[in-house]
């Protein structure tokens, strides 16, 4: 359980996180979404006591992270994967972390096997690929068999097989009743892994909701695809009822501003035959884009490609 209350963080003039309030509950995978620079990593660092909040508080399992007797058993975290000395072997990195808490070598070997790094664990971390570094970060996070797991972009640099592996791992952790909190910019990945979503933009909370609700909310204004042999007459009738009608490439109409039911009734009243009437589902990707488009820090400017 992670509780964030009125959490703010300024770096000089720049506001990284502003008055965040949310709770991450055990038993489900909670996704943490936001565009680059939205404050996801900062929030995670504040939860883990690496940065001090300017205002407000973050607690893990009822206490600030710093105040736990055995922090590694409370929270296992992977922030940037490369928070590791590149000159040390993966085994010795994990061993040095384990030793602080008196965790034995057997457990170190266990997490190495768990993430599939047996063959390279004795090599220097500097020689690791991005994916191997990511797995080592996950191993470190699981070392203390923690009640809460916090992972920043865990799928980064993993191949498709690795992504499936981490997805199953995270779901497994949540099913065991642990709190699982992960950030990702891969929306499609989040859709398949997370049940709950916390979305931030420009350091502020945008949504705290289930994945389903998030998508249906964003889909509320989504268009309905209509296919009819009598497109011209239907378009006219729909436009008369206040809908916006656009022609799709394949000859179908995309109607916005009216629900599928209303479109069907108008068509029936006009005695227009419909071949298709499909409310378009918005993917998490699109939902995310539409909800955060006002809070993207760096927007590409269309045009010349020559930037100052």
């Amino acid at each position: 359980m992670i509780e964030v209350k009125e959490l703010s963080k300024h770096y000089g003039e720049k506001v990284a996180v502003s008055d965040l309030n949310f709770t991450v509950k055990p038993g489900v995978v909670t996704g943490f979404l936001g565009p680059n620079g939205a404050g996801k990593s900062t929030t995670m660092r504040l939860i883990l006591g690496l940065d001090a909040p300017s205002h407000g508080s973050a607690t893990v399992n009822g206490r600030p992270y710093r105040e736990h007797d055995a922090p590694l058993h409370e929270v296992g975290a992977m922030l940037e994967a490369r928070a590791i000395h590149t000159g040390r072997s993966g085994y010795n990195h994990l061993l040095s972390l384990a030793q602080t808490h008196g965790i034995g070598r057997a457990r170190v070997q266990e997490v190495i096997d768990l993430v599939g790094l047996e063959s390279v664990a004795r090599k220097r971390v500097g020689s690791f690929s991005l994916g191997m570094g990511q797995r080592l970060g996950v191993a470190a996070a699981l070392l203390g068999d923690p009640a809460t797991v916090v992972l920043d972009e865990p799928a980064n640099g993993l191949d498709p097989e690795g992504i499936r592996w981490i997805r199953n791992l995270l779901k497994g952790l949540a099913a065991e009743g642990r709190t699982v909190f992960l950030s990702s910019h891969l929306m499609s990945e989040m859709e398949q892994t997370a049940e709950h979503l916390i979305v931030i933009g420009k350091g502020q909370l945008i949504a705290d909701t289930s994945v389903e609700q998030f998508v249906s909310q964003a889909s509320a204004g989504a268009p309905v695809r209509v296919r009819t042999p009598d497109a011209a007459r239907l378009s006219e009738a729909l436009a008369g009822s206040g809908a916006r009608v656009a022609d799709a490439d394949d000859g179908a109409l995309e109607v916005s501003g009216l629900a599928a039911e209303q479109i069907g009734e108008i068509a029936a009243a006009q005695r227009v035959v419909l071949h298709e009437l499909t409310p378009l589902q918005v993917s998490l990707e699109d939902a995310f884009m539409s909800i955060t488009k006002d809070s993207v820090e760096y927007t590409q400017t269309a045009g010349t490609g020559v930037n100052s």
Partner: protein
Amino acid sequence: MSATTASPQITAHRGERSRLSFGGVLRSEWTKLRSLRSTRWSLLVAFIAMAGLGPLIAAVTMAHWNSLSPVERATFNPIDRSLGGYRLAQLAIGVLGVMVISGEYTTGQIRSSLMAVPRRLPVLWAKLLVFSAVSFALMLIAALISFYASQAIFTQHHVNVTLGSPHVLRTFVGTLLFMTVTGVLCTGLGTIIRSTAGSISAYVGLMFVLPGISAILPSNISDAINPYLPSTAGTGIARPFPAAHAFSAWGGFALFCGYTVVTVVIAAYLLRRRDA
């Protein structure tokens, strides 16, 4: 890297629930120190310098003994000549002292370390204890080798001394103490400055450049500030006889320890307060 899609072993098999302890942090820092190549190289350089330079200089001096001037022979100092390797060894110890912490900042390791020990200060204390103990023990062995090998060479012209001779034991212990405290000072500098290059520059500036600048000042000013320079204050205890314009051996060493304590206190304050 093998495929791991099978149901993983997430839960640890442990009896008693382990917890964070200072003893554990000490073991962790020992693992970190011994598992880096840079540590092994730095300590090897320090060891060779401390153990080898004395006997080498002793052998060269004995070979040229007959060509030395009578004054040189009369003022020959068999203590300093046998332990003079610290002049090089201190640099390796200082650089390693910096890297013990700056290496964590430059690689990002510090965030892993501080997540495991979120109260932070135990990490600094453990680093200082482990590194001091290792460098003291290693330099003790090297200094013994250097001292006895050099004295054996000095017997050629009967200018050898023993640990029981005047000033010898104090110089011997003083050399070890100076190098050990230098390591502590450098870990403090590394914690404050965080970058390896910056910290090593600060160390070299304090200990090797300041004396050079002092030397080109008008002598009445230079003589007045000289005793307070960290290098003068610190090395007094490693010299058999006090230098001109310096405090007593132990007085100077106390001042050097004072500088080090101030540095470490600032380092501890910043480590605790700064965002990692």
